[in-house]
């Protein structure tokens, strides 16, 4: 593989933002354009259809319930309700919890992936960790909440042991486990495995030759990681970080089981609107809140693409 053969990939990046490399062909050259015949566009149809029927239509249906009242009349009151300070606070709380757990999850997950570098891909260790990570990434809801209550709750073995032997009461400043702060700990439990699952394929793409080349050219481990590995891994790392953020942002079964009083984060507000036995007639508010969540994700995605267009410059 020579630099001359690399042009198309770099041109792919050039598509988006970076300046043209003298040795590259722009991707929209006649040769490339000709190959994008009708047949190639047809190749996108199955996915497009599938996503249209099962994703767009339900999402639009669900989100537009926010624009109607119970009786079906068009209204903007639900949307206006989004600007209520209480609701804005819940969005802020959700954002903060998701961001923190995404970053912590990404960093710890990346560390675990790093620790797995060099193990045999088909070895026992890798298979076991892959399976454990997949299972734990989806472990959530009532059972996860209970696992943590049993592990570090007020009356758990650990808390009582710490109180009695070391004299350290982890709940001296209030029962944080049952408040958004507790979600920080509990969410990390599925964020880290999710990071391992989605980031490991990227880390495995680090070629041994690069490390050797770095060493031969007199680089240290630091230069290897900062100059070579991180730029290559950055798009995948931030992509996985984004996924972790979205995962935490919308996850509510665990929060519902843990934080039962008040609805401090957005998914719990949605749940309260849809599920309440005592305060009725707020179902359409849930649609408005979901719309708010999609808007937040659009903004985050936009920030992410700006970040990506800068980091993809470092791709070969």
């Amino acid at each position, binding site marked *: 593989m020579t630099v001359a053969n690399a042009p198309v990939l770099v041109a792919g990046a050039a598509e988006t933002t970076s300046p043209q490399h003298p040795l590259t062909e722009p991707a929209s050259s006649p040769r490339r354009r000709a190959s994008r015949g009708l047949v190639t566009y047809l190749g996108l149809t199955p996915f497009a259809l599938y996503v249209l029927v099962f994703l767009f239509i339900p999402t639009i249906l669900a989100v537009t319930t926010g624009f109607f009242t119970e009786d079906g009349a068009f209204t903007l009151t639900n949307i206006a309700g989004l600007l209520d300070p209480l609701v804005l606070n819940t969005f802020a709380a959700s954002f903060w919890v998701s961001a923190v757990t995404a970053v912590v999850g990404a960093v710890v997950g990346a560390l675990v992936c790093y620790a797995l570098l060099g193990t045999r891909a088909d070895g026992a260790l890798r298979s076991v960790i892959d399976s454990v990570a997949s299972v734990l990434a989806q472990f959530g809801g009532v059972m996860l909440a*209970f696992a943590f209550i049993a592990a570090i*709750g007020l009356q758990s073995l650990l808390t009582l042991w710490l109180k009695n032997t070391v004299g350290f009461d982890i709940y001296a400043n209030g*029962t944080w486990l049952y408040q958004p702060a507790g979600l920080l700990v509990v969410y990390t439990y599925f964020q880290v495995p999710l990071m391992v699952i989605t980031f490991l394929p990227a880390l495995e793409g680090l070629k041994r030759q690069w490390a050797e080349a770095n060493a031969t050219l007199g680089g240290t481990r630091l230069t290897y990681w900062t100059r070579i590995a991180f730029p290559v891994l950055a798009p995948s790392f931030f992509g996985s970080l984004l996924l972790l953020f979205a995962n935490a942002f919308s996850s509510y079964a665990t929060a*519902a089981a843990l934080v039962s009083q008040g609805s401090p984060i957005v998914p719990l507000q949605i749940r309260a609107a*849809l599920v309440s*036995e005592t*305060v009725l007639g707020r179902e359409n508010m849930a649609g408005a809140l979901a719309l708010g969540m999609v808007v937040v994700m659009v903004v985050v995605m936009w920030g992410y693409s700006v970040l990506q267009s800068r980091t993809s410059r470092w791709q070969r």
Partner: protein
Amino acid sequence: MFRKRHLAGIAIFAAAAITLSACSTAAETPAATDVDAATATSADDFGGLDALVAAAQEEGELNVIALPDNWANYGEIKAMFEEKYDIVVNSADPDISSAEEIAAADNLAGQDTAPDVFDLGTAVALASTDYFAPYQVANWDEIPEGNKESTGLWVNDYTGSMSIGYNSNDVPKPESLDDLLGDDYKGAVALNGDPTQAGAAFAAVGLATVQQGGTLDDFQDGIDYFGELNAAGNFIPVNATPATIASGETKVVFDWSYNNLSQAAVVDGWEVTTLPGAAYTSFYNQAISKDAPHPAAARLWQEFLYSAEAQNLFIVGGAYPVTIEAMNEAGTTDEDAIAKIGNLEGDIVTPTEEQAAAASALLAEKWAAAIG
């Protein structure tokens, strides 16, 4: 290795293909009877109870929703119905709320997994009468007047009394609400949900209100009490579930008597007490879905539920059935069961529709701040 991968792939697709073809069921054809079960308003419309049983058995299935096995002994009730009439009971979504039951009826309208019958809290029942079909059970007269809608759109089925369950190994038995403010109960008291969302928690605040000397017109006394409990460090904002009770995390729980009693049956050391003085009750409501996929079975379920057999099973579960007075008169009450839970005593209070609505509004405003 190449061949093994091919074989594995072929095997998987073959298995999927076979299962898919086996899974495609023919559309369910409605039972051919000359009675339109969906509009029947009593067993007489079928030509008697036996004809109703026959029509229901032809349908063969019943879809129930939001009936946990350990809630007022529904587990045994469903099992007995299955055994007695040889009809399969498909029990879906045991954990959802009344509002979600109605949402499920909407979401599944026209499909054969839609719910046939509902068991709803009062607020939701009153707001959703459009979803119900009127039906009067055979022993309609045994149900007191105030406990049913005149045409049978909804009928009260059972109630509990708001009680306090506690871990007898770790905390002393509370004799009054003030006891719970003491040091013995630090970090111990929990509710079954959020009062702005869950009926049981709402009722707990109601109980606190009347026990503190207030009236159901204004739940502020109850909110203030829980605020005090929280300030004393005795209230924990975790959702009390069977698991948290069994693990010792929630040492004192305000919940319906039937829930606390079912926990006492399973968890060694859990005891239940009802505070003397005012007793807060609230009936749940039984209704038949207008678009039930199995209308005859739904009506048979209703008949069964109000029969002495099933009503006694409610008592075994710790709930007070709506026909208890008639049963006591007729002598059909299960004496042992009622001895275990005691009669419904004290100053019984139940909120009216207006009181409940006012309380909901007040809680929506004040609760989060009081315990936040």
